[in-house]
């Protein structure tokens, strides 16, 4: 019997005591009082401060690096550059379950032959103070040979574009190209026959779209401390969603055994996918190895912007065909994604998600992965899905206008549902697209009359969600409290939600359970906290661990009463005889059993190591009302309603917070966020002043609507909920803009200069 069947959804026959209620967040007090320890908070005796020298050029050959003057500076203890790391072959390695090309990882962590983007790490220094480290950076002499650069994805695809990698031949095209290019890969998602579908269509909408790279904008910059000791043992403390990933890459790049790197995750001040890779940890470890002292490294905000992953910018083409009555006959798209300096944009998931909201017979999505002289993209909240959704959901809105059908009705008519075969492969089980559309349609916000210059936009979104490797240990303390050790850093309250599920299983108060994020030596492997997996997958493993512990409680009670274990049931935190036939025994509480554990067989614990399957996809539909200032192009968001399928909300207020946060990030992406490069390819706005994320006063209260269509593959029906709500936002905003102004803009951001220009053009100005 597979774990999925074992731990499938069961309609609860009794009222749930904790699940679905809001309890106090385990880490809440520490976070609001400033006690929580983040990446840069650790201080060790003898600790040095590291700093990174970064390329001022977008593209340059590195002919030589002279570190001698920096090394001679008093207070400098170690200087490293490319020579301090062995090169890695081009090889996809499994870092956990993430496949990365280790040749690119080593080059991104520290430039080798070339600097590939403004901000690319060239060398690093450890010194007794941060000021000395920065001073030492200025003494490092780098002989650069500046090369022509390319920033924009469309430019990078041109045959005469500056070439970033002479050895890169486009993968996935037949015949194989005979010349290298910046195009890393072509891919295709195909279902049915789009040509036939378009031939069958009464109406075809065909448009082009462009989006800009945007940064995840986490508050906490990347930070770590690494310590390497004389016996070859290393330790690293890092702000990361996955310390097992930190361990794997640090060990590999530093040529160490995995067992010799112990990694501990600090609290993390946001990641949104942007920390699903490492930048500083191998540098800190290499510096520490060179001087034998612990080294702290923390990025400044401008380093975060210049050198860490945004998500892709894109150029997209979309074509949708439909019958007069609204039935879609074919969906086609071509997605060109800029990956940054190394291949690996989220174009694949973008292609897979593009039409996932709909039950279609004919789909063809072509994707291109393109490199350019910008930082290597990393994951960002439903990676790629938000980008292709901007295009597809904008086109869907135009289709609804063309057909004269309400945009929600058009989507309902074509909605994915149980039994729908998705273009990317699987057939959906029970899913909540119809329910999320109906939640918006029936929401009072959808009926509020609009005034002049105001408009309403709707869009839908999809994200897969994932499971993955998970290890959990539950130790029963002698006072009946529980030490729950998890291997997934908590970004959003997950350790509380997971404790709540354990409390529900065990029948005890949640505050009797203390959840801790264990280091890499205390648990089996854990995939990173990503893909909205944590509450789903770690929760599922924790439920399993709880049931292991409960079975042991039953066994101990059975031994105490001298009756068969089958005759003992666990109810409401107590072992009881299954029936009066089993005997007449006073129920034993969890505390009773824990107190006597040493007499009944020793410590009680449950541990589970598994690869969790059965993640439930999550659909969302959102509606936004905006008001446009016709004289400045400024967009004010009046109200925003996000309805997403959570399967089951373990902690409703956490779920609402995720929907709200996702909506806000999408609003920023839609309105003002963009990277501005000068003509030399240098980033001009590496800070929050001019990289304009929304501030609180830019936003209305986001109305979050929790839709619950239980995931059949989780004991409480949980789906991942952290990502989908960002997916529809940008299209919803563009759709609202057309509703307000009759101007359609197919390029992000919808910044005041762009909107005003379009309004001027409409008015013949």
């Amino acid at each position, binding site marked *: 019997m597979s774990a999925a069947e074992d731990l499938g959804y069961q309609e609860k026959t009794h009222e749930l005591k904790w699940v679905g209620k809001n309890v106090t967040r385990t880490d809440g007090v520490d976070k609001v009082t400033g006690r929580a320890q983040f990446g840069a908070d650790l201080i060790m005796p003898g600790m040095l401060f590291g700093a990174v020298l970064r390329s001022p050029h977008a593209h340059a050959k590195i002919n030589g690096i002279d570190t001698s003057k920096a090394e001679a*500076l008093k207070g400098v203890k170690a200087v490293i550059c490319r020579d301090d790391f062995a090169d890695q072959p081009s090889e996809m390695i499994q870092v956990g379950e993430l496949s990365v090309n280790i040749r690119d990882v080593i080059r991104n962590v520290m430039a080798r032959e070339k600097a590939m983007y403004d901000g690319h790490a060239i060398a690093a220094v450890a010194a007794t103070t941060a000021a000395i480290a*920065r001073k030492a950076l200025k003494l490092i002499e780098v002989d650069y040979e500046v090369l022509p650069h390319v920033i924009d994805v469309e430019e990078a695809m041109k045959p005469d574009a500056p070439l970033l990698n002479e050895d890169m031949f486009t993968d996935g095209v037949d015949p194989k190209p005979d010349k290298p290019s910046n195009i890393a890969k072509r891919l295709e998602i195909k279902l049915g026959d789009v040509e036939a579908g378009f031939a069958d269509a009464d109406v075809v909408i065909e448009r082009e779209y462009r989006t800009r790279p945007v940064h995840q904008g986490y508050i906490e910059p990347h930070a770590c401390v690494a310590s390497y000791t004389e016996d070859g043992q290393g330790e690293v403390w890092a702000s990361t969603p996955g310390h097992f990933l930190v361990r794997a890459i640090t060990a590999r790049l530093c040529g160490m055994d995995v067992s010799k790197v112990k990694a501990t995750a600090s609290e993390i001040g946001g990641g949104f996918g942007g920390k699903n890779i490492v930048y500083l940890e191998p540098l800190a470890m290499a510096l520490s190895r060179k001087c034998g002292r612990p080294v702290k490294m923390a990025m400044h905000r401008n380093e975060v912007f210049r050198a860490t992953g945004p998500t892709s910018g894109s150029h997209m083409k979309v074509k949708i065909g439909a019958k007069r009555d609204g039935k879609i006959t074919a969906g086609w798209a071509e997605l060109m994604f800029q990956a940054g300096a190394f291949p690996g944009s989220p174009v694949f998931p973008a292609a897979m998600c593009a039409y996932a909201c709909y039950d279609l017979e004919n789909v063809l999505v072509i994707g291109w992965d393109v490199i350019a002289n910008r930082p290597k993209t990393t994951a960002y909240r439903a990676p790629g899905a938000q980008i292709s959704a901007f295009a597809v959901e904008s086109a869907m809105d135009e289709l609804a206008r063309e057909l004269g059908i309400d945009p929600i009705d058009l989507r309902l008519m074509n909605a994915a549902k149980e039994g729908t075969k998705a273009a990317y492969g699987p057939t959906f089980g029970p899913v909540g697209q119809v329910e999320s559309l109906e939640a918006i349609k029936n929401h009072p916000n959808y009926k509020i009359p609009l005034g002049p210059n105001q408009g309403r936009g709707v869009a839908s979104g999809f994200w897969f969600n994932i499971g993955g490797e998970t290890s959990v240990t539950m130790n029963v303390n002698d006072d009946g409290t529980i030490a729950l050790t998890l291997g997934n850093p908590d970004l959003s309250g997950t350790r509380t939600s997971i404790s709540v599920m354990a409390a529900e299983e065990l029948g005890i108060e949640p505050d009797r359970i203390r959840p801790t994020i264990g280091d890499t030596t205390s648990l089996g492997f854990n995939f990173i906290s990503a893909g909205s997996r944590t509450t789903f997958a770690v929760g599922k493993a924790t439920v399993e661990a709880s049931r292991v512990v409960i079975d042991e409680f039953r066994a101990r009670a059975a031994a105490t009463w001298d009756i068969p274990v089958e005759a003992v049931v666990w109810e409401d935190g107590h072992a009881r005889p299954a029936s009066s036939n089993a005997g007449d025994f006073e129920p034993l509480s969890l505390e009773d059993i824990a107190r006597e554990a040493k007499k009944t067989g020793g410590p009680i614990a449950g541990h589970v190591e598994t690869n969790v399957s059965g993640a439930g996809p999550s659909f969302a539909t959102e509606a936004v009302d905006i008001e446009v200032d016709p004289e*400045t192009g400024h967009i004010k968001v009046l109200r925003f309603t996000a309805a997403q399928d959570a399967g089951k909300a373990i902690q409703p207020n956490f779920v609402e917070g995720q929907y709200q946060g996702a909506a806000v990030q999408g609003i920023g992406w839609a309105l003002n966020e963009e990277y501005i490069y000068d003509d030399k390819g240098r980033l001009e706005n590496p800070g929050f002043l001019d990289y304009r994320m929304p*501030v609180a*006063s830019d936003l209305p209260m986001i109305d979050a609507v929790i839709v619950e269509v239980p995931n059949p593959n989780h004991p409480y029906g949980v789906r991942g909920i952290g990502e989908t709500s960002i997916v529809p936002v940008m299209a919803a905003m563009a759709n609202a803009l057309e509703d307000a102004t009759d101007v359609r803009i197919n390029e992000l951001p919808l910044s*005041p200069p762009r909107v*005003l220009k379009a309004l001027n053009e409409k008015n013949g100005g």
Partner: protein
Amino acid sequence: MASDRVNWNGSDVITMRYEAPETMEAAVELLSSDEGARVLAGGTDLLVQLRAEMIEPSLVVDVKRIAAMREITKENDGIRVGAAVAGAELGEHEEFKATWPGVLEAFELIGSTQIQGRATMGGNLCNASPAADSVPAMIAAGATATILGPGGQRDVPVEDIAIGPGQTSLDKGELVTSFFFPKPAARTGDAYLRFIPRTEMDIAVVGAGICLTLDDSDICKAARVSLGAVAARALVVDEAADALIGTPVDEAALAKLAEAASAAAKPIDDKRGTKEFRIQVMGVMARRTAEIALARAKAN
């Protein structure tokens, strides 16, 4: 109070001196004594520039402990505001608030609540950003800056202090100590508006400060218009003022004002806005500012 920031080795000592004099004269003496001296008032620009390693002053003179520079005093023919008065302090001064709402709203647009506890008009002016919010409002109000230097004291119109991005007309050792706001004529109103893509915590893409005075029959008899962020420094635009003077500030006058403001704008394309956008929106903001100033004048 000299302290070595870092003593790297015998030959390479970086020293930054910090001094906090208690009189204006002592401050002037310190500023005159060191080529690399910088004034620290609120520090909301200076400390950011220091952290970003844009500047490496050898001497920082903190003027926040000079009591005379932190006072708001009523004089016979107007109000004097110390150059080191913080935004939050000025905002609590009832008379200033009632008299110069436009200057105050401009000053209070700078940064956040926390920044308002530190930021000063002296700093905002002498940082000499073309986008400084309080400057067009002060210029429209006809404010003068009082300057103390090694050669004594002088009064200069605010519009003559900043001469370009990061540059002022102050001589070596000179310090702006206070601003004088002349008592406005009856039926005068002022206002300041800026355009930013967000709603706060941003820097003006364009800004307009307007002060106008009406006669008994609601005809504008005097006006001053100053535009920010559309040239190397805040502009005084007489053509824009002339569009209002002699009119009831009606639609036609406002349209001419907008046109004059757009015509006077000589912005650049940069990360904060395009040239064409700034020119167009400059006119829009000037008109909206005049409408607020007009309403205030009518109420006075």
